[in-house]
């Protein structure tokens, strides 16, 4: 069954710049799909669109069988999102951030408290629960963002560079949670800058370059694109400066 089905998607910004161009992609339940790309490739725009925060200029996105244009609230009820930048409420402390995340989702209070305590413990945050998130380190903020994504027991996780700023111990916990989530039948759409993270976690890896899907590969296939080129080599070439030509 398809968790995400994208057909002919084009995304643009209000200034007219195109972020994603004519992209088609399908991700199944129980699959971890990784998206690699350089800065500005369009990864975060694509993630925002899947999370219903950006409207397609052209094409369609169906998430868990629902159209992002028509059924945004229903989709949001069934996804967990870690955006690229933390969106914590700086006026609240850690526990309040997690509790309010559950309350916004309409979760019963008793269940919310149980789940929040579970995740505080899971991510080793019990000692800091009354601290304002404003004063926390980047890594701790990221941990809270991860907890938020799992709190509502979603069917699909959308993670935009989730391990950025995490120490290796917490990154291992994150990876284990993602694998466990996949084992339970959930789908994961993950963007990352780390090739090793994509290789370790993902069933398939897509390479987004200048708003277009340059190719999709599998770690088992040696991370080679359809063109036969290795992903690592592709990125090396993409960031290499153009050679100077003497007159």
């Amino acid at each position, binding site marked *: 069954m398809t968790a995400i089905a994208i057909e002919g998607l084009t995304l643009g*910004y*209000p200034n007219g710049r195109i972020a994603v161009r004519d992209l088609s992609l399908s991700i199944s339940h129980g699959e971890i799909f990784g998206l690699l790309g350089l800065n500005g490739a369009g990864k975060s725009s694509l993630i*925002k669109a899947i*999370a219903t*925060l*950006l*409207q397609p200029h052209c094409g369609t996105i169906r998430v868990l069988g629902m159209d992002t244009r028509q059924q*945004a*609230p*229903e989709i*949001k*009820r069934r996804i967990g*999102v870690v*955006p690229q*930048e*933390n*969106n*914590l*409420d*700086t*006026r*609240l402390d850690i526990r*309040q951030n997690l509790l*309010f*995340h559950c*309350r*916004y*989702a*309409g979760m019963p209070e008793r269940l919310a408290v149980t789940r929040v305590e579970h995740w505080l413990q899971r991510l080793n945050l019990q000692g800091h629960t009354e601290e304002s998130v404003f004063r926390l380190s980047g890594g701790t903020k990221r941990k809270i963002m991860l907890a938020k994504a799992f709190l509502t027991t979603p069917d699909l996780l959308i993670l935009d560079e989730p391990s950025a700023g995490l120490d290796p111990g917490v990154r291992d916990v994150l990876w284990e949670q993602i694998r466990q989530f996949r084992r339970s039948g959930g789908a994961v759409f993950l963007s990352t800058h780390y090739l090793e993270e994509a290789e370790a976690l993902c069933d398939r890896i897509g390479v987004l370059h200048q708003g277009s899907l340059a190719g999709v590969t599998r770690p088992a296939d040696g991370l080679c694109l359809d063109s036969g080129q290795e992903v690592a080599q592709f990125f090396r070439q993409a960031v290499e400066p153009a050679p100077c030509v003497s007159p």
Partner: protein
Amino acid sequence: MRFALTLLHRNLIIARADARYTFIRTVLQPAIYLLVFGLVVGRLMPDEAGGYGAIVAPGIIAISVVSAPLIAISSYLLTGYYFRTMEEWLLAPVSLRTVFLAMVFAGLCSSLVNALLVGSLAWAILGLVPHSPVLLLAVVSGGGLLFSLLVMLVLLIPERPEKGQELFALLMMVMTFLGCTFYSLDMLDEPLRSLALLLPTTYVSEGLRAAYLPSGPHLATRPLLLGLGLATLALYPAAEWAFRRRLGNFTW
């Protein structure tokens, strides 16, 4: 409704955490206004109908009612913009309209709370009690709703809400000084009288005067309620349009 109440709950937690600042803003500041303009200046002008205190106090309540949504809604928009909390709210499983209405509702509630607090102060300091609580509630609700929509519109038209906040502060200054808060409409001659009739603060202030002191000078109740209602109806689509335009595609 549940989302709106949750968002309101969040504001209460923040107000309690910032108790000192909340007290200064919602109690101390209007109390000083009522003491100075209502009691001290009021005694200097005892000949006005009901005394100047009875004319200016509803105006001071009006200032509090119309400025409350700015605090409540700009708190959402500025925190939402600078700390990206808006994304958290937009990712809640509700429609964009629900998020918009929840924020407007928070603005309206803050107006009602401010009216209650400053109204209590007016009673404690000047002994003023509303003659018509129903009219008082109608004017405060209408004014709170109207200004919540106005704040939403003005703060979301510029690219950054802080620019909108500066613009709104400027508008508030004009509306406070020319919009019959410190005097009644009857005290004005043309062309200031016509100008005042264009400002929504005039309708809120005059409405509160009608609620507190029906025998004193004030705009007739029916046109002022009609004015508030029509302005609210006109502003609603504009405010929702600004909200959708800025946040329908979340690019903050």
